[in-house]
């Protein structure tokens, strides 16, 4: 079903070995989306801010993977994975979240009622909420859908000085990931994070250390999440309801028929 759409879809390959942690992508993202700067405290570590929030669509996680006196830094960019078959899109009761043909998962604040089921549903914990307003929106990376429509690359990809992110058609991106892993055997872990996770995502990662060490959730199912609730969607429920109706009507008819006869007898 979605394979058809993939021909149109864009994707990004993040090569974690290339990132130097300059945070240009963080700044560029804030600029393009007009997101305000936020006040952060010194916490004795380099990751800043600590997590995504309603004013931050992407951030670099600074992770030291070295042994005692020899630090080895890894810089992991976090943002929405833009699942090919997203859990949030299936969860939203009003269809405020949509998967566009070019790959972006975007949000329509005019439809949203604020039930926050998308925040619960997302396997990667990406959507964030504007808690402090009376008209709160769900906020998350939108893959710069407006830029892609204009034929531009997403802002973070454009801003990156080290060519960490490779932006192209989905199939080309997957081919490139495989090519890089095969070209230098032993350099990369033989795992493209996002190829199977959550049934496939539009943002793919390759790395030279196992992904669980970099804070990636390895428990995420390797199948599309919406498939779980297709078994319990409206059509199934309507079928069950029809069965229930027949049973109830049957019981009601038989139980009340005998009783009324008894009543007539008495």
């Amino acid at each position: 079903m979605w394979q058809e759409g993939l021909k149109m879809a864009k994707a990004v390959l993040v090569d974690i070995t290339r990132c130097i942690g300059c945070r240009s992508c963080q700044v560029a993202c804030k600029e393009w989306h007009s997101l305000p700067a936020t006040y952060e405290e010194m916490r004795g570590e380099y990751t800043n801010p600590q997590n995504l929030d309603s004013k931050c669509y992407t951030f670099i996680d600074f992770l030291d993977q070295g042994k005692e006196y020899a630090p080895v830094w890894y810089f992991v960019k976090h943002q929405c994975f833009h699942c090919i078959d997203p859990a949030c899109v299936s969860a939203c009761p009003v269809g405020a979240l949509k998967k566009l043909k070019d790959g972006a998962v975007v949000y329509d604040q005019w439809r949203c009622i604020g039930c926050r089921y998308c925040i619960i549903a997302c396997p990667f914990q990406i959507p964030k909420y504007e808690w402090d307003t009376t008209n709160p929106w769900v906020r998350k990376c939108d893959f710069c859908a407006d830029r892609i429509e204009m034929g531009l690359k997403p802002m973070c990809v454009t801003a990156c000085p080290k060519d960490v992110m490779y932006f192209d058609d989905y199939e080309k991106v997957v081919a490139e990931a495989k090519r890089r892993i095969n070209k230098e055997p032993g350099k990369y872990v033989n795992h493209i994070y996002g190829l199977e996770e959550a049934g496939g995502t539009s943002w793919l990662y390759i790395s030279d250390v196992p992904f669980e060490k970099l804070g990636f959730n390895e428990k995420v199912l390797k199948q599309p999440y919406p498939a779980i609730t297709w078994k319990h969607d409206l059509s199934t429920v309507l079928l069950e309801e029809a069965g229930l109706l027949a049973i109830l009507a049957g019981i009601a008819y038989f139980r009340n028929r005998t009783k009324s006869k008894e009543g007539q007898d008495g």
Partner: protein
Amino acid sequence: MDNGVNIKQKFFTPRTYILLILSVIGVIIMLYRLAVGLGPTTNLSDTHPWGLWIAFDVMTGVALAAGGFTVTFAAYIANWDKYKSIARAATLTAFLGYVLVCIGLFLDIGKPFAFWHPFFFWNPHSVMFEIVICVTTYTTVLTLEFLPWLLERLNILTGLKDFLEQKPVVFCLVILGIMLSYGHQSSLGGLFLLEPHKLHPLWYSHMMHHWFFLSAICAGISMVSIETILGANLRNVEYEYDVLEGLGRGASIALLVYFICRLVDIGVHGKIHYIFAGDAASILFIIEMGLCVLVPMIFLSSKTIRHSVPFLLFFHSLVIFGILLYRFDVVFLTESTMGGFYFPSWQEIAISVGLVSLGLFLYKLIVTYLPIFEVPSDQPA
């Protein structure tokens, strides 16, 4: 209305005043929440997007209001005569329960005044969509079931009242109510089908929406039993022991079915060892399924217990506590894997307390002035 038992009861007692005060405090904080938004009033966060209002006001509230469809099934569909005397009270509880659930939902969603969107922007694949539609439709059905008693009292619109009290109409409403209840009681569990890697394996199951439905039946029967006892106390009349006995037996059977289903489900998927893991989750599970399901199930199967009002109150309360724990476990164990910490703010607690008080206050008001406990006059004696 002949005996006039209801009217003679004094309505404003000290307890009624306390309920009224708590309701008014709740309503004031509700207005405050609408004015300033979720952030200043709640301790909700990106790691705990659902809190007390969802777990208690909505999830537990809906489960406890299940007595409505359970008793109307017994009284009308199965035509068990002895339950007809409590059918009105059970329907009233369900009606008030759903009104409170709707208020709770209205306050909890981030954009309260966009509550009507699901009726126009459909996403039939969404479990949440199904819940919104079923809860609102069922509230309408309950309103239609309740309306004749109000009209009878006010003595207006007798045409509408007679129409709504016609047997075919009542049966249609009852059957529709049971179907809608099945739809959203199970869907509240179905919400968490999307959390296989977040929710603890003892609670996660691909059939958990059915366990939500079965446990709601248990909660509904226990709730109606307690209400029947307290209702008799309120009116200073004899306990209806045949009704209480039947409800106790029904609760015992419903608990047995629920207990077997859930344990078999856990056993078949090889998760038994989690029960005895000794961690917090296993202790919660043992309290929830052992203390609050197995124990009441065993004791309620005894006829001696079912004829003792204090024991009935105790074991039915235990069942209700168990169902509350089930809903809380599912919501908060899911969120515990998302990091962070949550404890409700005093405003969240005050609104929840206010909603419960408002429910009890309205209940007392309605049973005092409307014909809830009287046998309908058209019923052959």
